[in-house]
């Protein structure tokens, strides 16, 4: 590709794509710093000294509910991420390392989860949560998100695990290292890039999700930030300052997580591609 079009053409395409992808976010952030009139008057203009306003932020940050929504989002996302990574890595190791009855079938079953969106099961999930009395709890979301993230996590991590030389675990076994320690102390440290990759892929959809919070945890106490923001959108009047400010704030944690994992992530995405 790069040989046919030349590096310049490739860059043009990439830059254009970046612009298209970043434009909406830029608009959101830009307009969140403007007064309501300016948002409607000139939505594409940068905030100037006349139009600059922090009214949205002061409303959002002053609203005690927003803090709670944030806390809900962060706790649900982090616990889900941790469970996906822990159970995903353990399951990937088990499937890659141990041959047991039905292991192929189990791997196949898990890969179905990649192909079939979990939302298709919304009604039965709702049923289950109702009968477990988990409606309006953060646990309901954590359980669903863990289930949602696991198939992809297992898929990616199994690939990485299969690249780890088999001699390493053989050596550990000869050394008398217990199986559980082989996983946690020999294999897991080598999976860091893969885990970072999976972490980012897991976190973004969970953080942005509106569907399941709406379905399973719409109560005032358990709303996540994406759901909470909806309260600024009314049928007749929408508080655009607050919506845009809340959205801008909500982007920050994802960016933070990406920055934390990005160095590992790039190693993770390219690992195996070279060599």
């Amino acid at each position, binding site marked *: 590709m790069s040989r046919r079009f030349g590096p310049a053409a490739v860059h043009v395409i990439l830059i254009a794509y970046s612009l298209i992808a970043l434009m909406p976010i830029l608009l959101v952030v830009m307009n969140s710093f403007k007064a309501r009139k300016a948002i409607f008057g000139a939505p594409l203009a940068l905030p100037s000294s006349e139009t600059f306003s922090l009214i949205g932020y002061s409303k959002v940050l002053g609203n005690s509910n927003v803090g709670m929504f944030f806390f809900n989002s962060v706790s649900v996302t982090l616990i889900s991420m941790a469970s996906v990574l822990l159970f995903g890595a353990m399951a990937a190791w088990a499937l890659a390392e141990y041959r047991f009855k039905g292991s192929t079938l189990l791997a196949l079953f898990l890969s179905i989860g990649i192909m079939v969106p979990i939302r298709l099961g919304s009604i039965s999930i709702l049923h289950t949560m109702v009968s477990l009395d988990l409606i309006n709890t953060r646990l309901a979301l954590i359980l669903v998100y863990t289930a949602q993230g696991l198939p992809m996590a297992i898929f990616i991590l199994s690939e990485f695990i299969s690249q780890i*030389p088999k*001699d390493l675990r*053989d*050596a550990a076994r000869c050394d*008398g290292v217990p199986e559980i320690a082989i996983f946690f102390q020999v294999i897991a440290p*080598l999976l860091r890039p893969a885990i970072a990759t999976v972490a980012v892929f897991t976190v973004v959809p969970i953080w942005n999700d509106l569907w399941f919070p709406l379905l399973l945890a719409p109560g005032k106490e358990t709303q996540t930030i994406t759901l909470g923001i909806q309260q600024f959108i009314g049928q007749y009047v929408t508080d655009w300052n607050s919506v845009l400010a809340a959205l801008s704030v909500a982007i920050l944690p994802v960016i933070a997580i990406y920055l934390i994992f990005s160095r590992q992530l790039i190693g993770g995405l390219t690992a195996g591609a070279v060599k």
Partner: protein
Amino acid sequence: MARLNLDQVSKSFGTAEILKAVSLSIEDGEFVVLVGPSGCGKSTLLRLIAGLDPMTSGTLQIGDRVVNDLAPAERKIAMVFQSYALYPHRNVRDNMTFGLKFSGMKKDEIDRRVAEATRMLQLGELLERKPRDLSGGQRQRVAIGRAIVREPDVFLFDEPLSNLDAALRVSTRVEIARLHAMLRATMIYVTHDQTEAMTLADRIVVMNKGRIEQVGAPLDLYFTPANLFVAGFIGSPGMNLFSAHLTQAAETLTATTGFGYALPVKGATLASAASVTIGIRPEHVLFGETPYQAFSARVDLVERLGEISYLYCATVNGTPLIAEWRGRHTPSVGDTVKLSADPGTIHMFGADGTRVPDAVR
């Protein structure tokens, strides 16, 4: 330290039989090398001994214990891998102590063992370094150190030198030999390199297609190979093998090759009209006038190594052979040379490929 006994050990992967009823006894303190072409089952055998793979049938004894169902660590073995298999995120010291920590060993005992291994392998300056900062030879020394600190009954080496460059391979080989002399431990060593096998082994086990072809001291294998496979495998370049048929004339039995090389033979097991194989090592080929039966061949290629050169020749009917030439003035390509061999150095194998002792007169 322990004896090791394999009795009718078999291993199959699905329908593929990798090891076929292998039986072998290894004495306490012996250095045994398993050699064979790739796919012969030598590494599989080592992994069975280590307990990394279960055997399909048979019994394995280490010391006076049957260890069939024991985990690797309980067998009191230690293994050194071709890929070193060091824990990449641990430094040299932790690589050596990692396994010991799980055995509930006291810290001062661990320290004593590490200190001893460090001294033996001169790892002193490397203790705090990570494997990625070490050269191949150093890594392999650490891997050996990790085996030593376990103070195992049996050391297992799986092609430990194959990833090293030629010079390092020689020095590490010497180091392993010295280690064996120092520790007097039972060692089992897998390689496909016959130089390693010949130089290190007390006894060599030659394997082929899941079977043991011959077990013996290095020079026994070289001078009296039990069959055609061992004859062809041990020695480099390999032994020249010529098929011949036997004819009886009066009292004399004669083996004649397709290119007219006729050798008077004896041997109760040899019968007239049987086909046999005559083997002559390149280094035993003689040139020019000798008191022995001779044949002629044309030189096709000369490989000059310095002190010796290898002449790749073809006999009158095109049978290829290799002859070793000592000295400087080698025949040139296209020359016809007169070749012969001392009957004492000629090997003979029967129709089934097994050695016929003292057949050539």
